[in-house]
Structures are given as C-alpha cells and as structure tokens.
C-alpha cells in the first residue's frame, strides 16, 4: 500500500512539474518516422532530410509556402525579362550563414552552378536544367539566364534541393549543415535524435522556439505512448491507422491534410496484355476507390482521377471518368479477347498503403477475372526490379514529388508509356509562363492520362498530423516534404 502511495505521489509530482514548465515553453520535440541518412538536401532524395532542414536550417531564393504557393525567401524580390528568359533576383542584405560568413550573390552563383554541374549528384538535377548561366551583378543582385522560358522556374527554386549553401561548408553539410535559416544545427545523436537551436543572427522575422529536437520513432505503435507520456509533442506525419487511439483526447489535435503523393496502381504499359487500352480501362473500372481508401488509408485519402493532387491549383476532377463498374470492366476485357480473364503479378513495396491496398485491389480485380499473384518486395528491390529494370506487371506506389505529372513524358520511365500527344503538352508547359495557358495545358495533360488509363489512379496520400493542442503553426498540408518551424509556438 505504501509503495503505491509513493508511486502515486511521484506521478502527481511529475504531472505538476510538467504543467509548470509549460507556461512559457520554447522547446519542442518532434517525432519523425525515418532518420535522414545525412542532412544535405542538395545531395540526396530522402524526404527525411527536408523534414528536418527545409526552411529551418536551409533557405533558397524562393520558398514553398504551407499551401504550395511560391514565396520570396533569400530573394527579396525579382524581375523577369519580357522574353521570360532572364530572372534578376534582388537579395536580402545582412544575411549570414550560421558559421558567421556573409551570404551574397556569389553564394547564389556557387550554389546554382554546383547543383547543375556535370558531376553534380543533386537528386533533382532536372530543376536546374533550364539554367544557361548565373551572373553576379553586385553583392545583392544576381541574374539567372535560362536557355528557354520556363513557367515553373520560381517554383523549382523553392525546392529543398535548390537551397543556398556556402562554398566554405558545402562539402561538410551532410554531417554539419550550415545554412542561413532561423535555426542552426546543434547536434545529432545517430539513430536517435537531431537537435536544432535558434540561430544567433537571423535576418528574417524572429522565431518563437529556442530548441527543437527531431526524435526518430520508427514504430507506429511506439508513437502513441510517446505522445501520451508527453515525451514527444508532435508527430507531423502520423500513422493513419493509429489515429483512433488519439482523436478523442482533448490534449491533442489531429490534423488531416493533403500531400503531393499520388498513390497509383502502376501498370507496365508495354507488357501484354496491358498494352491494350481496353485492358487498362477495364482495370480502372474494376477498382473501387472508396473501398481502397477505407482499407489502406483509414478512409482519409482523397480519390483522384488523374495524376494531380486535389490540393493543387491545376487540379481538375476526373474521378468520375471510370466509376466502379464490374460489368463494364468484363465487357472491355471481352472486347480485348480476354473474356476468360488472365493472370498477372502485383509487386508491393513495404509501405503499409501498398501492402494493405494490394490485398484489396487483388480481390477487386479477381471479380472481373484478373488473378493477381502478390509479390511483396523491399524498397531497394522495388527500385531495382520495378523502377530501374521495369520487370513487373502491376505495382502500387505513391509518387510524392510535387507537381510531377511530367514523369509520364519521361523517356524510359517505368510506366513504359509513350504518347506523343501527351509529350507535346508537357513540352509546351515547360515553355509557357502565362498562368491561364498553363492551367489549360495541365488540364489537358490530366485528361489524356485519364483517357489512356495509363495507370490505376487511386487516391492522394493523406498527411495526418498529431500534436499537442497548445502547439500552433505547424503545417496542415505537405505541398513539399518539410516541417517548417518558423511560425511554430506554444500558446498558454
């Protein structure tokens, strides 16, 4: 009895001290599911790198805002020449890197030239492909000349891969990132956590937090007790299946937003019988998106009818193009000469949306006579066999790069899709900067993909964030991978 009383007293004490400490809180512990391999966003594709560094440690000329909009960042303003080829950026002055060196137009030239160089291993090198030359006009002005006008140039410059780095620290950013942002890198306990602290001389609007720790919690089951115990106060990317345990607890906020992750049933368009349009359309009719969304994303994903996020300003709703219709699917298979159905394989990467969705899709396609053999693969295997060698029939994957409809026009991409009409639309888009025209071209592109039933369009991957109800300013959506902390604060 005495033992329990002591325990209870200890627990009460712990509660009390936690409550008094929260009055003027300036620290935050954020849970992240995957540890970044390193912290240099210009040298790797891992989203986890950006989830720590974007907008916090590193900044670009422009940046992407919480809803996908392009905002000025290190460039205070810019002008665009009439032919759309020359961008003149006016930079903020008095900006310093975290190691004390001044940021100037020279660094912009260095960063952009480095990213587009012959031997660059920037994971999104295509962002810089249009750049012809970068010139320093004066320390606060830089002129970027493009080989051709590019409608998405300012957007491209807002990606994590296009951030500004200093020649002094560029080669060591992997281990000790040095940027111009409001937070500077403090320490990294490998496998465990990464700590950022408020930077000393920040040029922009002051931030509220003094210290932020990103703690790696790989297991979804461990995330719930970590929140409940108060050890971790925010999981911006939470497992949708665990939300039920948290959502009625008034101490926490559950925020469901959109990502740029189009989750699709990819089809090998060159492999018979998938080279026949009727077969691909039959698959689209056979899919019941509602059931897939309920089963694979806890009912939180938004259905899509083409390769565009419903949160994107260029989105057109094509979800009605192929309503769930088993009879129609069977009829199309019959037209294709496959009234007795056929067998195929479905390779599934290890993510839960793929593994759960795969089972449901296999059963839905069985209803129209397509018998799928499910082959679970590891991520590395998937990249090797499916993505690089194109050795697959069907697979499920979420394409998380923002605004990436152009992948269907890429040569040798794993869809094996090649439609000159579509390629033309994408080529036109690249050269068009007029907004109305771009919108129309994007609409055309989405429609062609839906008509061709290139892949089975399923749903937009939801972003489920869970955090302390007193915490404000975290992003609801994920237009790009990021945990922007510039506006995050505790209310009391």
């Amino acid at each position: 009895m005495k033992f329990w009383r002591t325990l209870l007293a200890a627990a009460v004490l712990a509660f009390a001290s936690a409550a008094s400490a929260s009055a003027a809180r300036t620290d935050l512990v954020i849970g992240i599911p995957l540890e970044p391999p390193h912290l240099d966003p210009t040298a790797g594709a891992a989203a986890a790198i950006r989830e720590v560094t974007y907008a916090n440690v590193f900044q670009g000329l422009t940046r992407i805002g919480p809803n996908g909009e392009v905002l000025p960042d290190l460039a205070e303003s810019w002008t665009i020449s009439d032919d759309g080829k020359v961008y003149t950026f006016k930079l903020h002055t008095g900006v310093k890197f975290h190691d004390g060196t001044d940021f100037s137009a020279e660094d912009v030239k260095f960063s952009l030239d480095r990213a587009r160089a012959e031997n660059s291993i920037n994971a999104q090198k295509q962002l810089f492909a249009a750049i012809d030359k970068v010139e320093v006009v004066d320390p606060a002005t830089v002129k970027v000349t493009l080989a051709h006008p590019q409608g998405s140039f300012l957007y491209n410059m807002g990606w994590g891969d296009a951030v500004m780095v200093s020649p002094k620290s560029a080669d060591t950013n992997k281990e000790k990132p040095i940027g111009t942002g409001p937070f500077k890198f403090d320490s990294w306990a490998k496998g465990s956590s990464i700590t950022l602290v408020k930077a000393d001389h920040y040029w922009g609007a002051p931030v509220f937090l003094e210290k932020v720790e990103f703690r790696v919690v790989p297991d979804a089951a461990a995330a719930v007790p970590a929140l409940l115990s108060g050890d971790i106060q925010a999981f911006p990317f939470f497992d949708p299946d665990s939300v039920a345990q948290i959502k009625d607890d008034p101490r926490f906020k559950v925020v469901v937003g959109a990502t740029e992750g189009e989750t699709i049933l990819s089809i090998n368009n060159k492999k018979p019988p998938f080279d026949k349009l009727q077969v691909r359309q039959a698959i689209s009719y056979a899919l019941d998106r509602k059931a897939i969304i309920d089963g694979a994303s806890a009912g939180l994903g938004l259905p899509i009818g083409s390769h565009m996020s419903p949160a994107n300003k260029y989105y057109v709703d094509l979800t009605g193009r192929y309503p769930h219709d088993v009879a129609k699917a069977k009829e199309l298979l019959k037209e294709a000469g496959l009234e007795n159905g056929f067998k195929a394989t479905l390779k599934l990467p290890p993510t839960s949306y793929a593994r759960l969705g795969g089972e449901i899709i296999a059963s839905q396609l069985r209803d129209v006579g397509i018998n799928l053999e499910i082959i679970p693969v590891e991520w590395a295997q998937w990249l090797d066999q499916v993505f690089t060698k194109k050795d697959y029939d069907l697979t499920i994957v979420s394409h998380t790069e923002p605004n990436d409809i152009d992948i269907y026009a890429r040569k040798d991409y794993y869809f094996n899709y090649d439609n000159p009409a579509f390629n033309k639309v994408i080529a036109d888009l690249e050269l068009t900067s007029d907004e109305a025209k771009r919108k129309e071209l994007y609409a055309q592109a989405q429609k062609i993909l839906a008509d061709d039933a290139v892949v089975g369009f399923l749903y937009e991957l939801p972003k489920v964030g869970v955090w302390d109800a007193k915490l404000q300013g975290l992003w609801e959506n994920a237009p790009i991978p990021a945990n922007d902390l510039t506006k995050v604060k505790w209310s009391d």
Partner: protein
Amino acid sequence: MTAYLLKRLAISVVTLALASMVVFAVLEILPGDPARLMLGMNASADQVELLRNQMGLNAPLVWRYLHWAGGLLNLDLGRSYTYSVPVIDLVRERLAVSLPLALIALALSTIIAIPIGLFSASRRGRAGDTIAMGAAQLGVAVPNFWFALMLIYVFAVWLRLVPAGGFSGWGAGVWQALKSLLLPAVALALPQAAILARVTRSALIEVLNEDYIRTARAKGLPYRTVLWRHALRNAMIPVLTILGLQFAFLLAGTIIIENVFYLPGLGRLVFQAITQRDLIVVESVVMLLVAAVIAVNLIVDLSYAVVDPRLRSRQ
C-alpha cells in the same frame, strides 16, 4: 590447456575468414542499388552511374572484397555509404546503447532465472514448481513487444517514472541513461529468464538423480549444501551454454524491442543498413558480430573448464 586454446583460436580464425566470404557474397547478390536509393526516383541513370563511381561500387567484385577484408585486418571497417562516416564510429555509438542494455538484461535474467530454477527443481512436482514453471511458460509465450508496450503504458504513460522511449545518451547523466534502458532491459530479460529458468530446472533435476547426490545425502550432508555445492555446479554447463547464446542474441537480435523503445542500438543500425543497402555497414557489423559470437563461445568453453575441473585435465 595451451594446445586446446591454440586449436580453438585457429578454428576461430578460419571461421572468421569463411564468414567474411559468405557475408560479402550474399550481400552482393542481394538486388538493390545503394546509389539509386540515395538519389531517389527523379535522378537520371547517368547520375546514378556517377554516384556509383564515386562510391566505388563499379570496381570488380574480387577487388572490392580484398579491399574490404584487408581493411578489416587493419581494424578499418570502411565508410558508410549513406551516413558517409567511418563504420567504426557508428558501431561505437550503437554499442554505447546495446552493450549496457545486453549486460543489464543478461544480469536481470540470470538473477531472476537461477533462483526460480533452484526453487522448482528442489520442489519438483509440487505446487510451487507447477506455478513457477507455469509462469515461465507464460514468459516464453508472451510476445516481448506486447509486454514492452504494456510496460510503457504502466511505467511511462500512467506513472511517468521513466521515459516512454528514446535514449538520452550517457552525456546527459548516468542515471538518465540507465532510466531509459530499464524498461527495455526488463522486456528483454523476461522471456530470456523464462527460458533460462526452465533449462536450470531440468539440468538440476537431471543432476539431482545422479548417484553421487544420493551418496552425498546418505553421508549426512544437509540438502541445502548438496543443492548448492554439488548439484548446481554440475548443472551449470547447459546454463552457461544458453547464457552465451542469449548474450549474442541480446547484442544485435533485439530489433523489435529497439523499435518499440526507439533505441539507437546495433540491431536497428543493421536493419536500417539492410533496407538502405548500406552494404559496407551490414558487412562490417555482421563480421563484428560473428567475431563477438566466436569470442563468447570461446569464453563459454573456457568457463566450462572453470566450473568443471574434469574438463581441465581432459584435452
């Protein structure tokens, strides 16, 4: 004894050499390209090729094996592809978690298991034995990740005595660090203790049926003395064998518990390295573990000789 030791050492060296070849070959035929993994789906094939060259992945297989194995001989474990830091640094950081955790868990499991084994064996077939062995059976059967979650809910979420997970590092204070290792150590120790208790019990029962025990009792030695001095000592060999195996497991086979408590242990390092195809890390750490297991086995073999003097004279 010296000849025995030398023979054991020679066998160990050959085992290590063979293991290095097998480990290297198996990982090389694993599908997956570390360069493509790092650059993601938007990078071009040329860029992947460029990175492969930078990482030295395009060199001939035999050359790469010799380079790696030669490094191992100089105690150079190579450089991680993904983290781009020396593997030895990664291992050292992880061992700061895994080694204390394994030792605490092992100590806990021994402290729990041996008395239970003694108790059960000396009350064989009676109510106490049945209850103790029933509990041990339960301990073996309960999945340890579930048990770990229950521990977290009680001691971290409800009572808030210890953190729900994570590791603050030894720099933040020994007490802090021990606190974060306590629940995982208990979760790891329980099933191990259950197995160990059962092994101790059956080994003891076997020994207690021996003639010399009857003789010892017949010459008037008290039961307690017989149990502790004559029976337990002779029953130690299977117990030590199991302990050796458990230590090897605890050092790197605890990925599930490390995940539940998000501890940066050696098991998670290997697991992460496998999924990211950080082959050099996997290869080097596996070799270290092979070496550790061989060393532990050697120690266990030598300790047989300590507990059983007969093995000392026998070659």
